[in-house]
């Protein structure tokens, strides 16, 4: 299994400790930048509990040491690392590989050949 890396935006386009949403293959992907570092996380933008494409507009923080985004709709917390919802264990969102290469933000998808 190899990862295919695709540039979606530049690091400088994302304010520290906030998120943005990238369109990739008709998918909406929320990308978060933690601190002013190059540490990025990518999860699906759709909030399955709030039922809208809004996660990229949530507040980034930590709860008991776990990095999370709080959905702006009903404040459910999703782990940025695992995609697990802290309030409801049965709910999990998709996470994606992401990296920064020379200031370019790249999303990793499994290449299907």
């Amino acid at each position, binding site marked *: 299994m190899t990862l295919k890396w695709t540039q*979606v*935006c530049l690091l400088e*386009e*994302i*304010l*520290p*400790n*906030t998120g*943005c*949403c*990238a*369109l990739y293959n*008709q*998918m*909406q992907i929320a*990308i978060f930048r*933690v*601190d002013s570092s190059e540490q990025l996380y990518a999860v*699906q*933008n*759709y909030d399955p509990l*709030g*039922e*809208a*494409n*809004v996660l990229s*507009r*949530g*507040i*980034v*923080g*930590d*709860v*008991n*040491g776990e*990095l*999370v985004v*709080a959905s*702006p*709709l009903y*404040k459910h*917390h999703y782990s940025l690392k695992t995609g697990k919802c802290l309030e409801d264990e049965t709910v999990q*969102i*998709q996470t994606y590989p992401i990296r920064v290469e020379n200031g370019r933000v790249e999303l990793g998808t499994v290449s299907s050949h």
Partner: protein
Amino acid sequence: MRDAHRPNIIVIGNGMVGQKLLENLVEAEVHKQFNILTFSEEPRPAYDRVALSSFFSGNRAEDLSLVPEGFFQQNGIGLQLSEAVTEIDRAKKEVCTEAGNRYTYELLILATGSYPFVPPLPGRDRKHCYVYRTIEDLEAIAACGKQSQIGVVVGGGLLGLEAAKALKDMDLETHVVEFAPRLMAVQVDEIGGQLLRSKIEALGVQVHTQKNSKEIVDGNQHLHRINFVDGEHLETDMIVFSAGIRPQDALARQCDLALGERGGIVINDHCQTSDTSIYAIGECALWQNRIFGLVAPGYQMAKVAAEHIAGGSAAFTGADMSTKLKLLGVDVASVGDAHARTEGARCFNYLDEIKGVYKKVVVDAKRERLLGAVLVGDAEEYGTLLQMTLNDMPLPENVDSLILPHYDGSGMTGLGVDALPESAQICSCNNVSKGDICQAVGSGATTLAAIKEATKASTTCGGCTALVGQVLNAELLKLGVEVNTDICEHFPHTRQELYHIVRINNIQTFAELIEKHGKGRGCDICKPAVASILASCWNQYILKPEHSQLQDTNDRFLANMQKNGTYSVVPRVPGGEITPDKLIAIGEVAKKYDLYTKITGGQRIDLFGARLEQLPAIWEELIAAGFESGHAYGKAMRTVKSCVGSTWCRYGVQDSVSMAIQIENRYRGVRSPHKLKLAVSGCTRECAEAQSKDVGVIATEKGWNLYVCGNGGMKPRHADLLASDLDDQTLIQYIDRFLMFYIRTADRLQRTSVWLDNLEGGIDYVRQVVCEDSLSIATELENDMQSLIDSYVCEWRYTVENEEERKRFSHFVNSSEPDSGVQFVKERGQIRPASTDELQQIPTQAIN
């Protein structure tokens, strides 16, 4: 419901105590075995006579009502208003009313209260002579006051001074005439009375003591002339008699019940009269040769009688007559044996003629126990001294420390509420003991507000609030309940503490605050809270990069997020006043962007369904049409609702619209712990519903009444009157101080109503801080507010004018396409979000 087979219980008098009895009977389910019928001479059901004078500061008859909505209907109790009982036939067990109706009774309760004593002066029946007991009395006094210049109160007791305040507030030249050598002779001693007199005279009320009135005759310049026995006289336009009260025992006299020598219906410990099927309670009853002219003992009698009727054996054991009052703005309190009449009693006095403070404590011969106290000018120690007296608590080593000022800032020696027995009555209005409060804490009531709700303590006169708070805190400590007031796991501080840290250390960013005073990265609780504090302190553009990351989505995109991820747009419409051109402009924007349009509950227009990327363009057009951000998205000042006021309304007495606009423009953009809503009404009809707002202003003939801490929403709360008849400038000054004090001290997401309910000292404390500047911070509060006002910029204007800022308003970082998940359908000619079944397949769902 009424049932012909059930025996009747008849209650004569639906005053404060009669009503309490009915409630106690219902609680004991007596109404299920008896038909209960009550008669009142007055035209309205029971109201709060204790708060009668607030009628002059804007409270209306409805506000004073003591009857819970639907009480009589729901419990099947018959109520006959304006129908006095004129006769009791004990042999037939029957009563006869004014209207000639007869009713039989199984049990009869006399709750007829008392009537004002009018000295038998020739001329006392002349017109424009009044008493001070009922709402009708006050209405008549108010009407007469409007056409009078001088008013005289005959009687310098507690009620007389209340009446004097009413006359003073009507701007009359006010005189108090007292027979005794001093004011309030019953409650305070010689020195206390002197001090009280000088304080009241300083307020412009003329006091005449040792004056024996002879007659009232025609005056030369004014309607009346009161001639005194000593040859002097006084001219006046109106007279209010307040020379004491007498038990209303006429019916008991008529049917030959045992009476006291000086009147009053004799009762035993179960509140039964000499006829065991007749009870008497409240001010008409005489127990052990004593009449109790206060409401709390009456309530206790009501309780005892109800329990006895229900088959219990409760007994009345007397009541404490200690009082704490504010008369003409002067604190006065009297506890226990204030006159040191007990054998061997000794006194400690403290008198400060400069500040106008007098305090006295009375101790027993052995100096072991406190017997009583008098406080004038400062009654802060009232609660402590009362509890020490009532509970026979040991005196501290230095008795004088109880009344001497504590310059070292250590405050009151404190009672150490732990020393109080469980049975100690903490709230006398509602008969709540320390034990009751402890029990409530045990069942989970851990805040002042929760205690109030669970026990009703401190919900009537509020005098016990501080003590209730002390008991609560001591109990929490004892139970080891750690009340964690930290805002969240990232800061070991309350919001209030964080506010001070930010202000004192001049902290400008979240990063700096968390690095120095917190830990971790922060979360969706502390980040918006700190953003709000920073805004309340420094008022910088909230979307500066360092602040932007802290904001909830609403603040981050300056619009309210809706269920489908779109936003609503609310332009400010100050005071709800809008020109046709502006209405058209809003309509045109709505039409162009196909937004759902609705009039809000806050007198403005909300445009729903804007996509993130449309917001800057929409606002650009609104700003061009002269609009500003309405801050509907922020924990900030929202709207100032107005009524049309004196400009158009035939009842209006002030221009409420201009005032509302002035206030809205003054406080626009001010960020606070929770949203703030204000309103201004043009007269007492209150069409702007100001009493349900955080700050409510109601016009009076003379200016404005200022109400605070009202709430609509989930738990409605009527606002409290903070100050009356203010001129424009003082009104604004008080609002400045009030808002800033709230912003400084409230918890996160705590509306003013909840804040007040949790504030020790309640509205009186707020009044001291805001109106009397007791903390000497008024100027600071005003300056802080002024700097917020001076630094105001419309956030939307700044945003649309900044290319960098505008860029953030795009759904995708890498595409200008709209969010395909946002879909609308049409309903009643406008858009609405598509429901789940109506949604086209959303591609993003496919990725799971």
